[in-house]
Each structure stands twice: as C-alpha cells, then as structure tokens.
C-alpha cells in the first residue's frame, strides 16, 4: 500500500477543521437570527427590572475584573 504523505494529511485535517468551525459559526448565526426578537411581554416593570439587572451585572463584572487585576 502506498503511504500518504504527511502534508496531505495536514491539508485534509485543516480543511475538515475549517469546515467544522465554519459550520459552528453558521449555526450560532442561525440561533442569533432565530432568537433576534424577544418574545416576552415587555411591560414597563419588566423593562425596568431588566435594566437594573444589566447595571447590577456590569457592576459585578467590574468588581471581578478589578479583583483579578489587583491579584495578578
């Protein structure tokens, strides 16, 4: 049996890997399109609660980043 050169194996592998990554990116884009519009009834209270949650999370992430910055 003829031996397949290493170069070809690398090309096939990188092609397959590239194909796989492209497939996953497409899938993520499909998910983003599918869920682009939030379906929950956005009452003023719901809107306010989500806004507070956004600020809370930004603050928390800020604190975590600060902590790691000072530790490192």
């Amino acid at each position, binding site marked *: 049996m003829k031996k397949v050169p290493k170069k070809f194996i690398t090309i096939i592998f990188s092609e397959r890997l590239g194909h796989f990554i492209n497939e996953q990116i497409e*899938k993520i884009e499909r*998910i*983003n399109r*599918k*869920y*682009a*519009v*939030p*379906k*929950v*009834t956005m009452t003023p209270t*719901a809107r306010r*609660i*989500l806004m507070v*949650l956004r600020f*809370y*999370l930004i603050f*928390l*992430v800020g*604190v*975590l980043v600060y*902590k790691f910055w000072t530790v490192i």
Partner: protein
Amino acid sequence: MNWFAKLFYHYRRTLKAIRIFFIISGPGIIVMLADNDAGGITTYAATGAKYGYSLIWFLLLLLPIAYYIQEMTVRLGAVTKRGLAEAIFDSFGSHWGWFALLDLMLVNWLTLVTEFIGMTTALSIFKIPPIVTVIVVCLFMGVMVVRGRYWTWEKVSLLFCALNLIYIPCAFLVKPSLESVLHQGLIPHFPGGSFNEFFFMLMANIGTTIAPWMIFFQQSSVVDKGLQEKDIIWGQMDTIIGAAFTVVVAIFIMIVTGTLLKGIEINSADQAVLLLMKNHKYIGVFLAIGLFNAGLLGAICISLASSWAFGEVFGWAHSLNHKVKEAPWFYFFYFLILVSSASVVLIPNAPLVTITLFVQVIAVTLLPAVLVFLMLLLNDEKIMGQYKNTLSQNIITGSIAVAIIILATLYAFSALFPNMFPTM
C-alpha cells in the same frame, strides 16, 4: 353497606394517587437531594461544628425558600415543554440567552470540579487513589446515561438519593440530647461569637440551598420526563417532598457534628471525617460514604444540566431516551464536561481551594439573572396562561428572590474581599 362502599372508593382513590405520584415523582426529589452535594455537606458539617444545634431553625426556613423557587420550574417546564435555557433565548433574545448559557456552563464546570474534589477526598480516607476514583466514577456515569433511558437513569439516581439519608442513623448513633436539640435548635437566637462569622455561615447555608444549576436541571428534567399541565400538582408534591428531605438530611448532619465536634473550626469535609473517626469509627466512615455519594449525585445532575441546556439551544437531540447514535452531540458534550472537570482534580498542585471559592463568586453573576428571568416568565400570561404566578406567589417568590440576591452578593463580596466587613 354504604359506608363500606365509600371506604373502598376512598381506598382505591388513594392507591391510584400514590401510584401516579410514584410514576411522576423524581425530578424534584433528585434535584433537592443532589443539592446536598459535596459543598453542601461540608457547609452543614462546618455549621454544626461551629454553632452546635443553634442554626437548625434556620435550616427549616430554607424549606419554603427551596420549594417556592424550584416549584416555578415545574410549572414553566410542564406548560412550555421547553428547558429554561431555550425559554431564556426565546423570551429575552439571544444576548441574554448567550450570557445565561455560557455563564451556566462555567459555573457548572467549576461546581463539577468541586464534586470530584469531594469524591476523591472521601475515598482517599479509605486509601483509594484519586485516579482510581475518577476513572471508576466517569465510567459509571457514562454507562448510566448510555445504557439506559430516562426512566432507568432516574431510578438509579433515586437509589443514590436514598443513600443520602445515611446521616439519619448517624445522628441516632451519637445519641444527642433530644431536649437540647429542641431547645437550642428550634428557638431562633444569636449563638454568640463574631457576628460576621455568623452572618457568613448563614449566607453559606443559603448559597448551598439554591444554585443556578438546580433551576436549569429541574426544568429540563420535567420536560425530558414529559410532564403535562395536569401533572403539575404531582410535580409540586415531588418538589416539596424533596425539599423536606434535603432539610432533614442537613439537620441530621448538623446534629452529628454539633454533638461530636461542637466548638471546632471545620474547613473541609475530610477534616470533619477524620475528626469524627477519632470520636466514633462508624460515624466517620458513614460521613465519608455520604460525602462520596453527595459528590456523585451532584455530578450526575450537574453534567446533565449543562448538556440539556446546550442541546435545547443548538437544536441537538437532547433526551436520555435517545441512543448515542441518535443524539451524538448531547452525549459528546456530557462526556466532555465530565472528563475535563474530572481531570482537573488529577493535576498536581491544581488550585483546588481557589476553584471552590470561585464557584460561589461566579454563581452570583448567574443566580440573580436566572431568578429575574424565571419571575418574568412566570408572570407572562401569553406563555403561562392560567398557570402564571398569582399575587401571593409573586409576593413570596419576589421577596425570596430579592433576599437571595442581596445575601448572595454579600457572600461573594466577603469571599472576594475578606477584610471588607469589620469584625463586630
């Protein structure tokens, strides 16, 4: 004759109700007992050792807290037939969806590492090397999902739940004074010492009672089991029985360490086991077995919670009723998180203490968001119809959610900045 016919009718009705309950029950009991995972056992053992029976009343308060939060997932799952991850994507858009999904993956992965720490520590007491524990556990968990169906998986998990009750005979073996348990345990009081340490302990106990993975897990489990709207009442009973079991187990752990190790500072479960072995050989052994079982039960649920969530969002087949060929990505993801988290424990000098601390902190970024999403979804008439939250449910769950968010945030801050709160 008439009363005999009535009696027979009631007997048949009760028998039928019990049969239905046994068919439908499972997700609630499993999630609640898995909540007493390796981290939970350590927290309860440390609380008992530090404060004796003084915080039993507080554990009783955790029963309605756990029930009201988890009960919402039963209704949401039975009505929408979707897991929470998919529901968040669909209702709040992909930005919130990706945030919840990726955060869940990170928190679950870290928590899974702590479960493996608990399991390897427990078995190392019996001189079993960590590598053997890790390989056997991974193989067992693999066979459990690959060879069976949802029903088989659930029954095996319930068997481990039953083993979680091992702490009950332990408490009888240490012969605690019933009068002291009732007197000190049921009357709320400040047991003395540093208020900060006391507050930290309360927060740790709440932190182990409600975790983000539990919310995702129970909803996905309800969906995979195929619960319908008419089964909600049974799902609620399943949840309240599970919540009662989890609190009973926690109380009995507290009684064991409160009787034998009162006044001793406990930092890890293996320290508690070794100290208990010196006092009473069998209790130490029981605690070690219980710790291993708790870690295993936690690992079983957490790894599935992640795979279910990813399967829902990516549209992969994601049921335990599917064979590996039918749902390859679901099982691949399950094994990926399982093996990767298990390998961390085997890395020499891995920062395991930092990881354990990290779990609590990262969980705080997810828990408030999940509670908010859950409340908003349960209040949407378009989604929930007649099963949406009532005013009284909103008042109770809203108060619980606000209290959990505040306490969890304070807990995370005290873990990140230990000197932030001055000693009182």
